């Protein structure tokens, strides 16, 4: 009888991914670290649930935690550790990132003194975007990763205006010419004009002026455009500005303030 069962087992193990029953706990350190990471994620889910205590979503956050734990227990019992890690990368990680961001954004909207990055975090949360999945080994502590994202956004008032980053679309004006003041060494400042139909020498002079005043090296002049630059102190906001191509990107220049604005040119 036993010999027959052994013969059966040998037959079955000749096939694909059969496993012998009663194997040891973890086959290699990778599986052990997956299990550790999974437990860490469960902790993060639990802490997230506690933060939602008292809100209408408390029960849902609790059920997220419990269901994730159920899946965790199930897969570990069946030694399907790779699937557990895959599950976390596809589901849990995104969930933790998204709702941590939402929570932080909510807390910075309140008049509670909190050193938290406001603009980028909130914008990401409301756009419903998810951070790219980080590899299973690294679980970023929740606030630290957000600080990296936001960088140096200045803290604002209670009602935070979320700046909407966008590349402005402009049209080049084929006739307009802009007058600018070129400081020539020694002599008086000369007024020059630059436009799309200016002679090549004038364009070169303009680019030389740029490299002196703004430190922009190899650029190419594209034309002028009528734009509206908000909060420009000296000039009225709407005016003609030169547009250049530099380092592979297109910019509109505010010459006096020495500012570049990324734009994209509509060809229609």
């Amino acid at each position, binding site marked *: 009888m036993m010999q027959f069962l052994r013969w*059966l087992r040998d*037959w*079955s193990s000749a*096939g694909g991914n059969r496993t012998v029953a009663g194997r040891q706990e973890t086959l290699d350190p990778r599986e052990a670290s997956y299990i550790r990471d999974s437990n860490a994620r469960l902790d993060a889910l639990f802490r997230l649930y506690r933060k*939602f*205590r*008292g*809100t*209408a*979503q408390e029960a*849902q*956050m609790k*059920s*997220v935690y419990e*269901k*994730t734990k*159920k*899946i965790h227990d*199930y*897969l570990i019992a*069946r030694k399907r550790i790779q699937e557990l890690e895959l*599950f976390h990368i596809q*589901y849990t990680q995104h*969930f933790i990132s*998204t*709702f941590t961001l*939402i*929570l932080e954004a*909510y807390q910075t909207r309140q008049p509670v003194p909190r050193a938290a990055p406001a603009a980028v975090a909130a914008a990401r*949360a*409301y756009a*419903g975007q998810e951070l790219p999945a980080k590899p299973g080994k690294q679980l970023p502590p929740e606030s630290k990763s957000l600080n990296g994202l936001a960088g140096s956004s200045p803290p604002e008032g209670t009602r935070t205006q979320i700046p909407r980053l966008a590349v402005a679309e402009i049209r080049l004006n084929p006739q307009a010419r802009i007058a600018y003041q070129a400081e020539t060494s020694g002599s008086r400042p000369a007024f020059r004009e630059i436009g799309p139909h200016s002679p090549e020498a004038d364009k070169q002079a303009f680019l030389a002026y740029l490299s002196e005043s703004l430190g922009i090296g190899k650029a190419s002049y594209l034309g002028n455009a009528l734009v509206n630059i908000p909060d420009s102190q000296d000039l009225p906001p709407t005016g003609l500005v030169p547009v250049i191509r530099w380092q592979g990107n297109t910019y509109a220049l505010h010459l006096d303030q020495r500012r570049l604005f990324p734009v994209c040119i509509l060809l229609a």
Partner: protein
Amino acid sequence: MDPAQASQEPQVLTAEQVALLDLYVQSLDTYYDKLKASEEIQVEIETRHLKKILSR
């Protein structure tokens, strides 16, 4: 974030985010059901293999 404050101000989550939360819970359920189903399929595969062996 006590219950009194929650009822006075807008909720922590927007309507869209609440819906997102619901969807996530649903997707967890679906995932778990798929896991159970995959186990049943595995049992079925093994059973058929065993039957094939025995019927030779």
